[in-house]
């Protein structure tokens, strides 16, 4: 079956749903097959559309910014990792390319409703939510949802619609208050980073409820079914029958601590030595059970956590994964795991990015220690390291933008610029995005990938660097030219810039084809993904084509950032991240210091074909 000859699209609904909240209009647009063939979907289609439609220099919180919810061809098809959705926008936190992904059924449901992409434009006069039920699309009044938590909003909408089966993306009070790192929640999972929730809040949009019943057409049904089965088997063989269950990524804490991979005390160190005891508490007292985000997932990274009783009593909820827990423990020297679980629960309910929240609180505590923020300026709070009560209180203040929460809610970069007094050196961020819970002093490829990730210091794309160096994961790329990680010392610096290029081009592919990234970490290699996409779409997509698309999309995102003002100087890491840790096991391991970041950067520029002086892609 040749989809090009017949113009029949397989693997796609074939439509963009465009909603203009200023005019109150809804339009259904057919997508040109050649555009989908070039960009496939996800952030690939996202960069194409937003580059074309967003004015240069647009204010991210103005009606002129746009919010694009995107799926990929594999989303919702039962392929490994197909519980996926992406959102693309200009970020209010960084002022550049913003994207965030979220696991679960929402993306697949949008496709089954008949839309591969949902584009939100303009700004409603009053608070609204969007209802999508196959061909029925309505902009509904949402006044009574104002100020409610994300779980309350979800419940109220389902009650109003008298239908529990809707999948609903909501913002919390952080998004309503335009906190720069507000997120969008779907159940207990998040489109976490870059302030997607603030963009949604700036449009007076509180939720998007989706239900869908249509089928996604498949070009070669028997072959695709075989590909799905074989690929899931391969993933299970690599990950084991339990996958990542029940502890999910939280279970990685002891290993990552031992590897020197967890930023500690606002990045003053990369290892605390408390990973085992902290995880032991979580496993025995807080972990309830595994909770896969979509039906059929064999990896099952999600989990339900709780605090049964005591000061930090917290009901059962999806949350407390690796990043969030590290942000509220290691970043802040907080040994109270119950408080950390409670803080991540509050971030869910208020719709706040846990990573940026932990990062900005770490910044505040560091400033406090150095006398750059006084107790009076902190509304009487004691910002001593590890103060659990203060941590929880700051999450509330930031989400509600009160007191010191106002300045902290702008993010560490803006907060440090306002506070001044040398606090800029304590703001651990790249391009305005706070660093996540992986430390490049455990493996140097991560350093370059942090510097060059297009949304800032994020872990979604750079984490392949950490896995390459420390976990010796080649992602199936050695046959395609990647240096075998078994031959590479994690502390070496030469060659890492070159390796980063291939890891970047491959690492972006799951976000383009519409699947969860954990699968490429666990046996789903380039050949497998090409097989799945080809048999689904009917197009000839081989590994070379996939890597070319990845390279192209990565470079286009870079071009977007260049036009929004990014320079080579924005690719640098904060000094502190390069230096030998101040304390901990790795303080005496000289090799872990990053000595020639400039050399690694140059190597990656050359590999990517970017101008050495400006960092601009040459083609």
């Amino acid at each position: 079956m040749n989809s090009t000859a017949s113009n029949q699209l397989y693997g796609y609904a074939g439509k963009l749903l465009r909603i203009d909240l200023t005019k109150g209009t809804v339009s259904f647009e057919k997508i040109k097959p050649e555009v989908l063939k070039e960009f496939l979907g996800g952030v690939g289609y996202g960069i194409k559309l937003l580059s074309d439609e967003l004015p240069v220099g647009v204010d991210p919180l103005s009606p002129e910014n746009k919010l694009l919810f995107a799926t990929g061809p594999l989303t919702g098809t039962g392929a490994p990792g197909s519980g996926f959705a992406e959102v693309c926008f200009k970020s209010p936190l960084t002022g550049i390319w913003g994207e965030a992904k979220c696991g679960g059924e929402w993306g697949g449901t949008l496709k089954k409703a008949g839309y591969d992409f949902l584009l939100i434009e303009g700004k409603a006069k009053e608070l609204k939510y969007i209802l999508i039920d196959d061909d029925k699309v309505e902009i509904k009044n949402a006044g009574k949802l104002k100020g409610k938590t994300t779980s309350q909003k979800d419940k109220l909408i389902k009650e109003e619609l008298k239908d529990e089966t809707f999948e609903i993306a909501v913002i919390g009070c952080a998004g309503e208050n335009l906190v720069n790192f507000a997120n969008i929640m779907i159940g207990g999972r998040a489109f976490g980073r870059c302030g997607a929730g603030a963009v949604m809040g700036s449009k007076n949009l509180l939720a998007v409820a989706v239900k869908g019943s249509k089928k996604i057409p498949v070009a070669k049904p028997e072959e695709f079914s075989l590909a799905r089965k074989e690929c899931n088997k391969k993933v299970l063989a690599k990950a084991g029958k339990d996958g990542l269950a029940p502890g999910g990524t939280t279970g990685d804490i002891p290993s990552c601590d031992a590897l020197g991979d967890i930023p500690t005390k606002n990045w003053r160190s990369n290892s605390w030595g408390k990973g085992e005891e902290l995880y032991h508490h979580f496993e025995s007292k807080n972990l309830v059970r595994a909770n896969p985000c979509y039906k059929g997932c064999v990896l099952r990274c999600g989990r339900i956590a709780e605090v049964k009783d005591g000061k930090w009593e917290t009901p059962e909820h999806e949350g407390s994964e690796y990043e969030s827990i590290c942000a509220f423990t290691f970043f802040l020297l907080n040994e109270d795991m119950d408080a950390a679980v409670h803080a991540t629960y509050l971030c869910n309910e208020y719709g706040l990015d846990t990573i940026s929240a932990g990062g900005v609180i770490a910044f505040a505590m560091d400033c406090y220690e150095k006398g750059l923020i006084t107790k009076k300026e902190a509304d009487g709070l004691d910002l001593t390291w590890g103060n659990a009560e203060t941590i929880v209180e700051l999450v509330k203040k930031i989400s509600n933008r009160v007191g010191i929460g106002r300045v902290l809610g702008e993010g560490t970069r803006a907060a440090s610029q306002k506070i001044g007094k040398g606090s800029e050196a304590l703001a651990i961020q790249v391009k305005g995005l706070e660093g996540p819970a992986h430390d490049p002093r455990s493996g140097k490829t991560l350093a370059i990938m942090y510097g060059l990730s297009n949304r800032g210091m994020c872990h979604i794309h750079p984490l392949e660097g950490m896995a390459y160096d420390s976990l010796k994961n080649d992602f199936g790329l050695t046959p395609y030219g990647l240096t075998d990680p078994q031959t590479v010392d994690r502390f070496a610096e030469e060659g890492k810039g070159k390796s980063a290029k291939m890891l970047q081009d491959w690492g972006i592919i799951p976000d383009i084809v519409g699947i969860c990234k954990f699968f490429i970490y666990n046996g789903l290699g380039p050949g497998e993904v090409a097989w799945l996409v080809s048999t689904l779409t009917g197009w000839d997509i081989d590994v070379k084509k996939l890597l070319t698309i990845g390279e192209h999309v990565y470079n286009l995102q870079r071009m977007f950032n260049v036009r929004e003002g990014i320079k080579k100087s924005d690719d640098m890491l904060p000094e502190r991240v390069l230096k030998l840790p101040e304390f901990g096991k790795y303080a005496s391991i000289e090799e872990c210091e990053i000595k020639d970041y400039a050399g690694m950067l140059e190597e990656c520029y050359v590999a990517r074909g970017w101008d050495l002086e400006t960092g601009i892609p040459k083609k």
Partner: protein
Amino acid sequence: MIVKVKAFANLREVFGGEIKVNLKEGAILKDLLSPVYLPPEAVEVIIDNESGEIKPTILILKNERNIRFLRGLLTKLEDGDEVNIFPPLGGG
């Protein structure tokens, strides 16, 4: 001499966590990774039966340094060394 050996992730189930091993002076890693000092089930997970080499999926650090970039199985051990053993880790 005493060497501390720790296993991580699902290797803990086989290994039992952290143990202190009393080795002869001059011992090397190959001596440590044997049923003399470690549970046989653990050795089976770590060492390939046929080649006698450490399985490529197993990561071993001696004092935070990957032993593959020291002297592999011939790496000398000293009093107070910490040996961390990691199974294949997925990451994420």
